[in-house]
Protein backbone atom coordinates (compact mmCIF):
# COMPACT_ATOMS: atom_id res chain seq x y z
CA UNK A 1 0.00 0.00 0.00
CA UNK A 2 1.27 3.42 -0.84
CA UNK A 3 0.01 6.48 0.94
CA UNK A 4 -1.06 9.01 -1.67
CA UNK A 5 0.62 11.87 0.23
CA UNK A 6 4.02 10.31 -0.09
CA UNK A 7 3.56 8.37 -3.26
CA UNK A 8 6.57 8.47 -5.50
CA UNK A 9 5.56 10.04 -8.79
CA UNK A 10 8.92 11.09 -10.18
CA UNK A 11 12.41 9.86 -10.77
CA UNK A 12 13.96 12.69 -8.79
CA UNK A 13 15.87 12.28 -5.56
CA UNK A 14 14.46 9.29 -3.79
CA UNK A 15 14.90 8.35 -0.21
CA UNK A 16 13.55 5.15 1.15
CA UNK A 17 11.56 5.23 4.35
CA UNK A 18 11.15 2.09 6.35
CA UNK A 19 7.67 0.66 6.78
CA UNK A 20 6.62 1.69 3.30
CA UNK A 21 6.43 -0.15 0.01
CA UNK A 22 7.07 2.97 -2.02
CA UNK A 23 9.64 5.69 -1.70
CA UNK A 24 9.32 9.26 -0.60
CA UNK A 25 10.25 12.18 -2.77
CA UNK A 26 11.38 14.84 -0.37
CA UNK A 27 10.95 17.64 -2.89
CA UNK A 28 7.32 16.70 -3.29
CA UNK A 29 6.93 16.63 0.45
CA UNK A 30 8.44 20.06 0.83
CA UNK A 31 5.99 21.43 -1.70
CA UNK A 32 3.30 20.21 0.63
CA UNK A 33 4.79 21.94 3.66
CA UNK A 34 6.34 18.82 5.22
CA UNK A 35 9.95 19.40 6.16
CA UNK A 36 12.21 16.49 6.97
CA UNK A 37 13.71 16.55 10.44
CA UNK A 38 17.05 15.17 11.57
CA UNK A 39 15.17 12.40 13.35
CA UNK A 40 14.20 9.30 11.43
CA UNK A 41 10.65 9.34 10.04
CA UNK A 42 9.84 12.67 11.67
CA UNK A 43 8.82 15.84 9.91
CA UNK A 44 7.87 19.42 10.72
CA UNK A 45 4.43 20.30 9.39
CA UNK A 46 4.34 23.95 8.39
CA UNK A 47 1.00 25.68 8.61
CA UNK A 48 -0.16 28.52 6.43
CA UNK A 49 -0.60 31.68 8.54
CA UNK A 50 -0.48 34.77 6.28
CA UNK A 51 0.77 37.80 8.18
CA UNK A 52 1.28 35.60 11.24
CA UNK A 53 -2.29 36.13 12.34
CA UNK A 54 -4.64 33.48 13.75
CA UNK A 55 -7.94 33.64 15.55
CA UNK A 56 -7.75 32.47 19.14
CA UNK A 57 -10.40 29.85 18.40
CA UNK A 58 -8.33 28.37 15.59
CA UNK A 59 -5.18 28.52 17.69
CA UNK A 60 -6.88 26.45 20.40
CA UNK A 61 -7.89 23.85 17.81
CA UNK A 62 -4.41 23.80 16.24
CA UNK A 63 -2.97 23.36 19.69
CA UNK A 64 -5.11 20.26 20.26
CA UNK A 65 -4.00 18.78 16.93
CA UNK A 66 -0.35 19.63 17.63
CA UNK A 67 -0.62 17.99 21.02
CA UNK A 68 -1.99 14.86 19.39
CA UNK A 69 0.52 14.52 16.55
CA UNK A 70 3.76 16.09 17.78
CA UNK A 71 5.81 13.31 19.36
CA UNK A 72 7.46 15.89 21.60
CA UNK A 73 4.47 18.17 22.08
CA UNK A 74 6.18 21.24 20.61
CA UNK A 75 5.55 23.82 17.93
CA UNK A 76 7.91 26.38 16.47
CA UNK A 77 7.17 29.85 15.10
CA UNK A 78 8.86 29.85 11.71
CA UNK A 79 10.89 32.85 10.59
CA UNK A 80 8.05 33.65 8.25
CA UNK A 81 5.45 33.82 10.98
CA UNK A 82 3.81 30.46 10.38
CA UNK A 83 3.35 27.82 13.01
CA UNK A 84 5.25 24.56 12.52
CA UNK A 85 4.16 21.39 14.29
CA UNK A 86 7.37 19.49 15.03
CA UNK A 87 8.09 15.76 15.37
CA UNK A 88 5.21 14.50 13.25
CA UNK A 89 5.51 10.94 11.96
CA UNK A 90 5.14 10.81 8.18
CA UNK A 91 2.68 7.95 8.50
CA UNK A 92 0.28 10.40 10.12
CA UNK A 93 0.36 12.98 7.31
CA UNK A 94 -3.02 12.08 5.92
CA UNK A 95 -4.66 12.20 9.33
CA UNK A 96 -3.12 15.47 10.48
CA UNK A 97 -3.94 17.18 7.19
CA UNK A 98 -7.54 15.95 7.42
CA UNK A 99 -7.88 17.20 10.98
CA UNK A 100 -6.38 20.57 10.12
CA UNK A 101 -8.67 20.80 7.10
CA UNK A 102 -11.68 20.32 9.39
CA UNK A 103 -10.82 23.47 11.34
CA UNK A 104 -10.07 25.40 8.15
CA UNK A 105 -6.31 25.39 8.62
CA UNK A 106 -4.21 24.81 5.53
CA UNK A 107 -0.69 23.47 5.33
CA UNK A 108 1.91 25.82 3.82
CA UNK A 109 4.49 25.05 1.18
CA UNK A 110 8.17 25.33 0.51
CA UNK A 111 10.12 25.07 -2.72
CA UNK A 112 10.00 27.10 -5.94
CA UNK A 113 6.74 28.96 -5.63
CA UNK A 114 5.05 32.01 -4.12
CA UNK A 115 5.31 31.65 -0.36
CA UNK A 116 2.96 32.72 2.40
CA UNK A 117 3.29 36.50 2.72
CA UNK A 118 4.50 37.99 6.00
CA UNK A 119 3.29 41.25 7.51
CA UNK A 120 3.52 43.47 10.56
CA UNK A 121 0.45 44.54 12.53
CA UNK A 122 -0.22 47.40 10.12
CA UNK A 123 -2.61 50.31 10.51
CA UNK A 124 -5.37 48.27 12.13
CA UNK A 125 -3.85 48.50 15.60
CA UNK A 126 -0.24 49.66 15.38
CA UNK A 127 0.02 53.45 15.91
CA UNK A 128 2.86 53.72 13.36
CA UNK A 129 1.02 51.69 10.71
CA UNK A 130 0.17 53.50 7.48
CA UNK A 131 -1.18 50.63 5.38
CA UNK A 132 -3.42 47.66 6.14
CA UNK A 133 -0.65 45.10 5.88
CA UNK A 134 -2.73 42.28 7.31
CA UNK A 135 -5.45 42.76 4.72
CA UNK A 136 -2.82 42.86 1.96
CA UNK A 137 -1.12 39.68 3.22
CA UNK A 138 -4.47 37.90 3.24
CA UNK A 139 -5.16 39.08 -0.31
CA UNK A 140 -1.74 37.95 -1.60
CA UNK A 141 -2.07 34.59 0.11
CA UNK A 142 -5.51 34.10 -1.41
CA UNK A 143 -4.56 35.19 -4.94
CA UNK A 144 -0.95 34.03 -5.36
CA UNK A 145 -0.02 31.39 -2.80
CA UNK A 146 1.66 28.40 -4.42
CA UNK A 147 2.05 29.94 -7.87
CA UNK A 148 5.05 28.15 -9.44
CA UNK A 149 8.17 30.29 -9.95
CA UNK A 150 11.79 29.45 -10.91
CA UNK A 151 12.84 29.53 -7.25
CA UNK A 152 11.23 30.63 -3.98
CA UNK A 153 9.37 33.93 -4.14
CA UNK A 154 8.89 35.78 -0.88
CA UNK A 155 6.74 38.81 -0.29
CA UNK A 156 6.15 40.91 2.80
CA UNK A 157 4.25 43.96 3.95
CA UNK A 158 5.53 46.56 6.40
CA UNK A 159 3.17 49.28 7.53
CA UNK A 160 5.79 52.03 7.95
CA UNK A 161 9.45 52.87 7.28
CA UNK A 162 10.57 51.12 10.47
CA UNK A 163 10.09 48.08 8.20
CA UNK A 164 9.65 45.33 10.78
CA UNK A 165 8.60 42.95 7.98
CA UNK A 166 12.00 43.53 6.33
CA UNK A 167 10.81 44.42 2.85
CA UNK A 168 14.44 45.12 1.93
CA UNK A 169 15.14 41.37 2.20
CA UNK A 170 12.20 40.15 0.10
CA UNK A 171 11.96 39.09 -3.51
CA UNK A 172 9.15 41.62 -3.62
CA UNK A 173 8.42 43.81 -0.60
CA UNK A 174 5.83 46.48 0.08
CA UNK A 175 6.42 49.14 2.72
CA UNK A 176 3.78 51.64 3.78
CA UNK A 177 4.38 55.35 3.24
CA UNK A 178 2.44 58.59 3.56
CA UNK A 179 3.19 61.84 1.81
CA UNK A 180 2.78 64.77 4.19
CA UNK A 181 1.27 68.04 3.07
CA UNK A 182 1.51 71.27 5.04
CA UNK A 183 -1.24 73.82 5.18
CA UNK A 184 -0.15 77.25 6.46
CA UNK A 185 -3.42 78.64 7.92
CA UNK A 186 -3.63 75.94 10.61
CA UNK A 187 0.06 76.22 11.57
CA UNK A 188 0.86 78.04 14.81
CA UNK A 189 4.63 77.69 14.43
CA UNK A 190 4.89 75.50 17.53
CA UNK A 191 7.89 73.58 16.09
CA UNK A 192 6.70 70.18 17.36
CA UNK A 193 6.95 68.75 13.82
CA UNK A 194 10.62 69.69 13.71
CA UNK A 195 11.09 67.76 16.94
CA UNK A 196 8.92 64.85 15.79
CA UNK A 197 10.85 64.38 12.53
CA UNK A 198 13.65 61.91 13.11
CA UNK A 199 15.13 62.51 9.67
CA UNK A 200 15.83 66.27 9.88
CA UNK A 201 13.50 66.77 6.94
CA UNK A 202 11.76 69.59 8.82
CA UNK A 203 13.55 72.69 10.08
CA UNK A 204 11.58 75.43 11.80
CA UNK A 205 11.90 78.98 10.54
CA UNK A 206 13.76 80.97 13.17
CA UNK A 207 11.33 83.90 13.01
CA UNK A 208 7.94 82.22 12.66
CA UNK A 209 8.60 78.67 13.86
CA UNK A 210 6.91 77.40 10.70
CA UNK A 211 8.32 74.31 9.00
CA UNK A 212 10.71 74.29 6.07
CA UNK A 213 10.33 70.86 4.51
CA UNK A 214 13.04 68.99 2.60
CA UNK A 215 11.35 66.19 0.64
CA UNK A 216 14.72 64.58 -0.16
CA UNK A 217 15.28 63.80 3.52
CA UNK A 218 11.72 62.55 4.14
CA UNK A 219 11.11 58.83 4.70
CA UNK A 220 7.33 59.31 4.55
CA UNK A 221 6.66 57.94 8.03
CA UNK A 222 3.96 60.46 8.93
CA UNK A 223 5.40 61.37 12.34
CA UNK A 224 4.88 65.07 11.53
CA UNK A 225 1.21 64.43 10.73
CA UNK A 226 0.69 62.48 13.92
CA UNK A 227 2.50 64.99 16.11
CA UNK A 228 1.02 68.19 14.72
CA UNK A 229 -1.34 69.63 17.38
CA UNK A 230 -3.44 71.64 14.93
CA UNK A 231 -3.73 69.39 11.88
CA UNK A 232 -1.58 71.68 9.73
CA UNK A 233 0.28 68.59 8.49
CA UNK A 234 -2.09 66.34 6.58
CA UNK A 235 -1.82 63.09 4.65
CA UNK A 236 -1.76 63.83 0.93
CA UNK A 237 -1.64 60.18 -0.14
CA UNK A 238 -0.85 56.74 1.21
CA UNK A 239 0.86 53.97 -0.67
CA UNK A 240 3.64 51.42 -0.74
CA UNK A 241 7.31 51.68 -1.55
CA UNK A 242 7.91 48.61 -3.70
CA UNK A 243 11.25 46.86 -3.38
CA UNK A 244 12.51 44.08 -5.62
CA UNK A 245 15.31 41.55 -5.61
CA UNK A 246 16.12 41.32 -1.93
CA UNK A 247 17.08 38.14 -0.13
CA UNK A 248 18.75 36.97 3.01
CA UNK A 249 20.55 33.63 3.34
CA UNK A 250 24.22 33.02 2.70
CA UNK A 251 24.57 35.92 0.34
CA UNK A 252 22.16 38.65 1.38
CA UNK A 253 21.10 41.27 -1.15
CA UNK A 254 19.30 44.47 -0.32
CA UNK A 255 16.24 44.98 -2.48
CA UNK A 256 16.09 47.89 -4.90
CA UNK A 257 13.23 50.37 -4.53
CA UNK A 258 11.30 50.56 -7.80
CA UNK A 259 8.16 52.49 -6.93
CA UNK A 260 7.36 55.13 -4.32
CA UNK A 261 3.63 55.41 -3.80
CA UNK A 262 1.95 52.34 -5.23
CA UNK A 263 -1.70 52.47 -4.16
CA UNK A 264 -3.31 49.42 -2.51
CA UNK A 265 -5.41 48.60 -5.55
CA UNK A 266 -2.32 48.27 -7.78
CA UNK A 267 -0.55 45.75 -5.53
CA UNK A 268 -2.13 42.61 -7.10
CA UNK A 269 -1.19 43.83 -10.59
CA UNK A 270 2.39 44.53 -9.47
CA UNK A 271 2.74 41.02 -8.06
CA UNK A 272 1.07 39.37 -11.05
CA UNK A 273 3.32 41.12 -13.56
CA UNK A 274 6.45 40.56 -11.47
CA UNK A 275 5.74 36.82 -11.37
CA UNK A 276 5.22 36.88 -15.14
CA UNK A 277 8.55 38.64 -15.68
CA UNK A 278 10.27 36.28 -13.26
CA UNK A 279 8.90 33.18 -14.97
CA UNK A 280 9.78 34.51 -18.41
CA UNK A 281 13.32 35.67 -17.59
CA UNK A 282 14.83 33.58 -14.83
CA UNK A 283 16.53 30.23 -15.21
CA UNK A 284 15.26 27.34 -13.17
CA UNK A 285 16.50 27.61 -9.60
CA UNK A 286 17.42 31.27 -9.94
CA UNK A 287 16.17 33.88 -7.47
CA UNK A 288 14.73 37.03 -8.98
CA UNK A 289 17.70 39.08 -7.78
CA UNK A 290 20.07 36.96 -9.90
CA UNK A 291 17.78 37.23 -12.89
CA UNK A 292 17.61 41.01 -12.42
CA UNK A 293 21.39 41.26 -12.33
CA UNK A 294 21.76 39.08 -15.41
CA UNK A 295 18.93 40.48 -17.52
CA UNK A 296 18.94 44.02 -16.08
CA UNK A 297 16.59 45.96 -13.88
CA UNK A 298 15.75 48.04 -16.95
CA UNK A 299 14.10 45.02 -18.60
CA UNK A 300 11.94 44.50 -15.54
CA UNK A 301 10.96 48.16 -15.25
CA UNK A 302 10.10 48.28 -18.96
CA UNK A 303 7.93 45.18 -18.56
CA UNK A 304 6.13 46.71 -15.55
CA UNK A 305 5.30 49.79 -17.65
CA UNK A 306 2.41 51.81 -16.28
CA UNK A 307 2.05 49.73 -13.14
CA UNK A 308 4.82 51.69 -11.45
CA UNK A 309 4.05 54.98 -13.15
CA UNK A 310 4.07 57.69 -10.54
CA UNK A 311 2.90 61.24 -10.21
CA UNK A 312 6.32 62.49 -9.24
CA UNK A 313 9.71 61.21 -10.23
CA UNK A 314 11.34 58.54 -8.19
CA UNK A 315 13.87 59.65 -5.60
CA UNK A 316 16.54 57.21 -4.53
CA UNK A 317 15.83 56.27 -0.93
CA UNK A 318 18.08 53.33 -0.31
CA UNK A 319 21.24 51.66 -1.33
CA UNK A 320 20.55 50.91 -4.94
CA UNK A 321 22.48 47.75 -5.52
CA UNK A 322 20.63 47.08 -8.75
CA UNK A 323 20.90 50.15 -10.90
CA UNK A 324 18.84 50.32 -14.06
CA UNK A 325 21.16 50.23 -17.05
Amino acid sequence: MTDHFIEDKTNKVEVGLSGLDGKVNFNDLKSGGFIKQRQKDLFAVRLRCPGGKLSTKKLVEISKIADKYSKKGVVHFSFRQSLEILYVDYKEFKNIVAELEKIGQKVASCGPRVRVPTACGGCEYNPNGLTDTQKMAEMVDHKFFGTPTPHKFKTSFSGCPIDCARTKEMDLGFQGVVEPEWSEPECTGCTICEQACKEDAIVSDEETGKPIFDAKMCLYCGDCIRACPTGAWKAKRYGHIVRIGGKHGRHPVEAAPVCEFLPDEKVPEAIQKTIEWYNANARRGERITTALKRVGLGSYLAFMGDTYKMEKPFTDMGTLKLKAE
Partner: protein
Amino acid sequence: MSEIKADATLDLRGVMCPINFVKTKLKLEAMEAGQVLELTLDSGEPIQNVPKSIKDEGHTIVEVKKEDGYFRLKIQKS
Protein backbone atom coordinates in the same frame (compact mmCIF):
# COMPACT_ATOMS: atom_id res chain seq x y z
CA MET B 1 -0.99 84.03 21.41
CA SER B 2 -3.35 84.44 24.34
CA GLU B 3 -2.48 82.60 27.53
CA ILE B 4 -4.74 79.65 28.25
CA LYS B 5 -5.25 79.07 31.95
CA ALA B 6 -4.09 75.67 33.18
CA ASP B 7 -6.12 73.73 35.76
CA ALA B 8 -3.20 71.46 36.62
CA THR B 9 0.48 71.17 35.87
CA LEU B 10 2.86 68.25 35.45
CA ASP B 11 6.60 68.66 35.13
CA LEU B 12 7.99 65.66 33.26
CA ARG B 13 11.53 66.86 32.74
CA GLY B 14 13.92 64.00 33.33
CA VAL B 15 11.13 61.40 32.99
CA MET B 16 11.73 58.80 30.29
CA CYS B 17 9.39 57.36 27.64
CA PRO B 18 6.92 55.83 28.08
CA ILE B 19 6.63 56.65 31.78
CA ASN B 20 6.08 60.32 30.91
CA PHE B 21 3.06 59.43 28.79
CA VAL B 22 1.67 57.07 31.44
CA LYS B 23 1.94 59.84 34.05
CA THR B 24 0.22 62.25 31.65
CA LYS B 25 -2.55 59.75 31.05
CA LEU B 26 -3.12 59.16 34.77
CA LYS B 27 -3.15 62.90 35.47
CA LEU B 28 -5.67 63.48 32.67
CA GLU B 29 -7.86 60.67 33.94
CA ALA B 30 -8.17 62.45 37.27
CA MET B 31 -9.32 65.63 35.51
CA GLU B 32 -12.68 66.73 34.12
CA ALA B 33 -13.41 66.94 30.38
CA GLY B 34 -12.54 70.38 29.06
CA GLN B 35 -9.96 71.10 31.75
CA VAL B 36 -6.44 72.06 30.75
CA LEU B 37 -3.22 70.37 31.85
CA GLU B 38 0.11 72.10 31.47
CA LEU B 39 2.85 69.63 30.68
CA THR B 40 6.61 70.24 30.72
CA LEU B 41 8.46 67.85 28.41
CA ASP B 42 12.12 67.46 27.50
CA SER B 43 13.29 67.96 23.93
CA GLY B 44 14.33 64.83 22.07
CA GLU B 45 12.44 61.58 22.52
CA PRO B 46 9.75 62.85 24.94
CA ILE B 47 8.63 65.67 22.63
CA GLN B 48 8.83 63.27 19.63
CA ASN B 49 6.51 60.73 21.23
CA VAL B 50 4.22 62.16 23.88
CA PRO B 51 2.25 64.63 21.71
CA LYS B 52 1.43 61.83 19.21
CA SER B 53 0.16 59.59 22.00
CA ILE B 54 -1.90 62.42 23.52
CA LYS B 55 -3.52 62.99 20.12
CA ASP B 56 -4.12 59.22 19.68
CA GLU B 57 -6.04 59.28 22.98
CA GLY B 58 -8.30 61.99 21.58
CA HIS B 59 -7.14 64.99 23.63
CA THR B 60 -6.32 68.37 22.09
CA ILE B 61 -3.01 70.16 22.34
CA VAL B 62 -4.11 73.78 22.63
CA GLU B 63 -0.80 75.53 23.17
CA VAL B 64 2.88 74.77 22.64
CA LYS B 65 5.75 76.89 23.92
CA LYS B 66 9.37 76.15 23.19
CA GLU B 67 11.77 76.90 26.03
CA ASP B 68 15.48 76.25 26.26
CA GLY B 69 15.86 72.45 26.08
CA TYR B 70 12.23 71.71 26.91
CA PHE B 71 8.64 72.35 25.84
CA ARG B 72 5.53 73.54 27.66
CA LEU B 73 2.31 72.05 26.30
CA LYS B 74 -1.25 72.78 27.26
CA ILE B 75 -3.61 69.88 26.78
CA GLN B 76 -7.36 70.05 26.89
CA LYS B 77 -8.95 66.85 28.09
CA SER B 78 -11.52 65.36 25.71
